[in-house]
């Protein structure tokens, strides 16, 4: 009954795409309009927190190796931390704007964990390629939430932040457990699927 890893990636991609669209909409209309409805204010932080909760079963059930468990649990923790901090900021319980740095931390830690737990080279398989790509995308994209903390009104940083989620969704949707990448597939990877 346990879904294949690629299905888990696709489910997370669905969530990230929805978050990306919401953040893009917030960028377009501006935070003032977006926050006119309380539920919209809590939407992205709430989804980040729930995403972190869903990472725990991933950590428990996908125990390919110790490094996988450590990577998945570190994602779970930083996603929940970032979601909780953003919820605290949105509610006004947290006063310091520097709590928003937890989102940059979540991106950087998630990217590093993605890179560390993929032990195959880039062209080993599509999955390996996309793990490297998403890892570096997350590490690079951590500059957007980092900059957003210090320049919260910057449309460019907000758009970059939103598009990071869309890019991550595209990468995760493209993932397959065993498939070619640019015509390359290691014979050690297994039988490919389309």
């Amino acid at each position, binding site marked *: 009954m346990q879904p294949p890893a690629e299905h888990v990636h696709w489910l997370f991609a669905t969530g990230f795409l929805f978050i990306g669209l919401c953040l893009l909409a917030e960028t377009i209309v501006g935070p003032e309009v977006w926050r006119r409805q309380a539920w919209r204010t809590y939407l992205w932080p709430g989804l980040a927190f729930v995403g972190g909760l869903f990472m725990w079963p991933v950590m428990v059930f996908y125990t390919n190796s110790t490094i996988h468990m450590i990577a998945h649990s570190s994602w779970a923790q930083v996603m929940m931390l970032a979601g909780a901090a953003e919820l605290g900021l949105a509610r006004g319980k947290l006063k310091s704007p520097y709590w928003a740095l937890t989102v940059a931390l979540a991106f950087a830690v998630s990217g590093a964990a993605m890179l560390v737990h993929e032990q195959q080279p880039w062209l080993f398989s599509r999955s390996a390629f996309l793990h490297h790509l998403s890892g570096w995308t997350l590490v690079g994209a951590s500059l957007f939430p980092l900059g957003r903390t210090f320049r919260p009104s910057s449309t460019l940083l907000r758009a970059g932040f939103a598009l990071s989620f869309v890019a991550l969704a595209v990468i995760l*949707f493209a993932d397959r457990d065993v498939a070619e990448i640019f015509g390359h597939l290691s014979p050690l990877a297994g039988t490919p699927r389309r």
Partner: protein
Amino acid sequence: MDIQHVTRLARRHHSVRARAVLALGPLSVLGGLLWAVLQPYRVTVLDPEGQGFWWLFVEPPLLVILVGVLFAWLVAPGLIRDLEEQER
């Protein structure tokens, strides 16, 4: 919020920002449809025989379409209303 209301919103004259927000959902739906046409084997429900639960429950092009529909249905209409109130 029903489909007729969403359609009425789409037909009314909107600012550039409102039209950009209204376009996000349909663009996502269009992306999912194009993907389904280009890679029909990713839509396992088209050939369900022998497929397990997860292969029928999680179909990426349909999920992209679902995200677009949910955004256009649940998020965009209220956001456009608030945007237009602010612009007035």
